[in-house]
């Protein structure tokens, strides 16, 4: 059992750059981890979820190896749970209640409040993306050196909003202003052109779609440039040009799929089919409507599948493009992801999810059989409702049965298709000042949630 001590070649200079090898060591025992998490989640009415998720992350982080040594995840279940409670109490609940209260108001006010709420939620989504990333990085170490994300999440949220809202706004209202200016201040011409006609809406869609590659580079740049390992920053210099060349093909493919979907839906949406949707007094009409709904669902599913296939090679290209323009010290990353690989990964993940879903469905049916037949609980009684609630929870929890495996497959695919070229002066990288950690103790860190 003795192993000879490998003598390290004498280091010429302790801080001279060395190559760093990135690899993936697929973790074993993820299915039994999923089963244990499911059992404990059920027995603790879901609270264990946060600790289960933490154990999954500890395994997945450990599977990513640099020079054969694992990344370490230092986050805790307690942090995830506290973060969830804070966001649930201070964000989700107030927003939901405000939205519900707004429905009671008369219409112009009601709609305005709900639009404002949606915009705010969109902004918060951006903030959450950044904060989740910051949380994960600050809980990631390699050889004891911490990673961090040093920027401002509110500013990121704002960029997240305006890079989409501005092009949309210009496309929606631009024609009106243009008409107003060209006609020397004719308000009627402005009103005519500014209305959300089909033309301007299509224009808005086109504009919004063509902004996406630029936007993704902009957002990725913010995330990467704020990122540090110890005291050293990452840099990012991806040009948009190559992305746009690939995007053209993706966009054309999506346009064909969208056009086919519109044609299919409009073709099926005959007056007879639609009548049944609003009239529940006639069984024949309702059967027509049901047929329409089934057809529409099928068409939507098929369109999504095709879209996924078309988008996969673009997303793989984007991953590789981002990787090769991300630098750290003297090294760069190199991505080798392919559309085919992403599709294969997603397909496997879907099948795993489906298996969990079917198991959950069986559990739900068994549970309801127990409630209805064995215990004879009337469905409208409080006991029956509580039983149904627990059954839905059973289904929901079972759907996550293979989640550890799914997460590991996805991370593994990306890690196996990412390499580091060049050399990094590892011994010269130090922990750096702890500004990120000290600030972290305040309320701001409480919002660094990653529980969703």
């Amino acid at each position: 059992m003795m192993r000879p001590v490998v003598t390290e070649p004498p280091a010429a200079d302790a801080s001279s750059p060395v190559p760093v090898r990135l690899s993936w060591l697929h973790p074993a025992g993820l299915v039994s981890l999923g089963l244990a998490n499911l059992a404990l989640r059920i027995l603790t009415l879901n609270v264990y979820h946060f600790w289960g998720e933490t154990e999954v992350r500890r395994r997945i982080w450990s599977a990513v190896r640099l020079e054969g040594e694992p990344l370490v995840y230092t986050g805790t279940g307690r942090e995830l749970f506290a973060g969830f409670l804070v966001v649930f109490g201070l964000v989700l609940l107030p927003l939901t209640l405000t939205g519900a209260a707004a429905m009671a108001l008369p219409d112009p006010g009601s709609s305005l409040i709900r639009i404002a709420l949606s915009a705010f939620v969109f902004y918060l989504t951006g903030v959450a993306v950044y904060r989740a990333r910051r949380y994960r990085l600050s809980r990631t170490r390699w050889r004891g050196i911490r990673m961090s994300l040093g920027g401002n999440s509110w500013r990121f949220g704002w960029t997240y909003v305006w890079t989409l809202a501005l092009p949309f706004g210009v496309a929606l209202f631009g024609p009106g202003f243009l008409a107003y200016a060209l006609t020397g201040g004719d308000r009627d011409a402005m009103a005519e052109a500014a209305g959300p006609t089909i033309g301007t809406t299509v224009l808005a869609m086109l504009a919004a779609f063509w902004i996406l590659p630029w936007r993704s580079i902009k957002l990725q740049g913010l995330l990467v440039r704020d990122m540090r390992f110890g005291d050293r920053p990452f840099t990012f210099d991806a040009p948009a040009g190559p992305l746009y060349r690939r995007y053209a093909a993706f966009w054309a493919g999506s346009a064909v799929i969208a056009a086919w979907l519109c044609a299919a839906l409009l073709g099926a949406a005959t007056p007879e089919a639609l009548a049944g949707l609003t009239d529940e007094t006639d069984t024949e009409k309702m059967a027509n409507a049901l047929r329409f709904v089934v057809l529409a669902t099928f068409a939507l599913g098929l369109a999504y599948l095709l879209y996924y296939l078309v988008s996969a090679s673009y997303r793989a290209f984007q991953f590789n493009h981002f990787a090769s323009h991300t630098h750290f010290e003297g090294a760069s990353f190199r991505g080798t992801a392919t559309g085919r690989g992403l599709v294969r990964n997603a397909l496997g993940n879907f099948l795993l999810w489906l298996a969990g879903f079917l198991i959950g469905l069986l559990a739900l049916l068994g549970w309801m059989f127990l409630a209805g037949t064995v215990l004879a609980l009337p469905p409208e009684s409080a006991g029956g409702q509580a039983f149904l609630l627990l059954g839905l929870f059973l289904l929901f929890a079972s759907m996550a049965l293979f989640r550890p495996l799914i997460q590991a497959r996805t991370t593994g695919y990306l890690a196996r298709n990412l390499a580091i070229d060049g050399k990094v002066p590892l011994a010269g990288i130090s922990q750096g000042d702890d500004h990120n950690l000290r600030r972290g103790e305040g309320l701001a860190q409480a919002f660094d949630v990653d529980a969703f």
Partner: protein
Amino acid sequence: MHSDTAASPLFYGRFSDGRTAGATDVDVRLGASGVEVMRKGALPLVWPYAGLVAAEPLSSYAVDALLSSPASPGASLFVGEGLFARKLAEKAPHLTTRAQRWQHAKPWLLATLATVAAAIAVWALDLSPARTIAGLLPDRARSAVGEQIMTEMSGDRPQCDAGPGRAALDRLTTRLAEAAGDNTRFKVVVSDWDLMNAFAAPGEQILLTRGLIEKAQSADELAGVLAHEMGHGIERHPETALVRAIGLSAALELMMGGSSGTLANAGLFIAQLAYSRDAERAADAEALRILAKAGISAKGFASFFRRVQKEEEGSGLGKSLSSLEVLRTHPVTEERLRVVERTPDYKSTPALDEKEWAALKSICGAARPKPDKVRPAKPAPPPRDI
């Protein structure tokens, strides 16, 4: 210090001091009191087993172990051998998967036990927290919520308010409300809707449909249905159902990590809910009390349901779903009917006189062509009660 050299093999490890991202080769041994790290040209370190932290819990699948210790803050030690991990698990059992899961889950398992015990107690003692909260709601809040539900239920169907019909309905409402006592003020709205139904909303608000009024053969029959709905209102059943629906959605939302979205749809949820059999019995009892006090015969109440039920049994399916709706969500049980029919006779006068009844019958305007022509603009929400 290292007396048990023979007992424990040497392992090869990589040691990082935590000050830089560099690492050095070390020899590692599982000593008597801790992990011993032997660095070249430095004193050996001993990391006591008790305080050790492992990057991932030690499982039987482990192929390596990455450790840190409060004895050397910031430092970490990586040993890439499964045997080391398994030997370490024997020495430091708190690092194993099983121990860590138990440590994290234990407080919550106990909390769950307490919750389940509390729920069983609530159920066994027949307490109703939802009902208690419903009783505490201020009147203004109940009315505001009720109005919103009434609006949502009737969709964009017009309200029926033809002058003489409205006056007759008001007279009937007042007569019943006075008998109900407690100065409760009921708001009764008629919706121009083929569907035959009636339901109570929070804040003593009641919605009757045109279909129901057309189906009733006498004012006494309508009075029975109205008194039953008033019974629900007096017992605060709609408020209780609402509070329960919100509570259940919040619980579901919490259990599903804020991703179920049911809280936002609590309104939708309550529209689906029916009252329990107990609630129906309570509303019936309340209705019989009101009718007796008002001097209106309870016979109409019973005959109405008898007739609707019989007609439904006789007719083929699919002809008219609208009257089926009433019984689909709320089967009128034989037991309920018998209780009502067994009510002893008392001195009574008709709920309304012939003229008033005729006016009420046409509260939605003159008789109109049979349904199907009038198409509601929205899918009708499922009715929840009679």
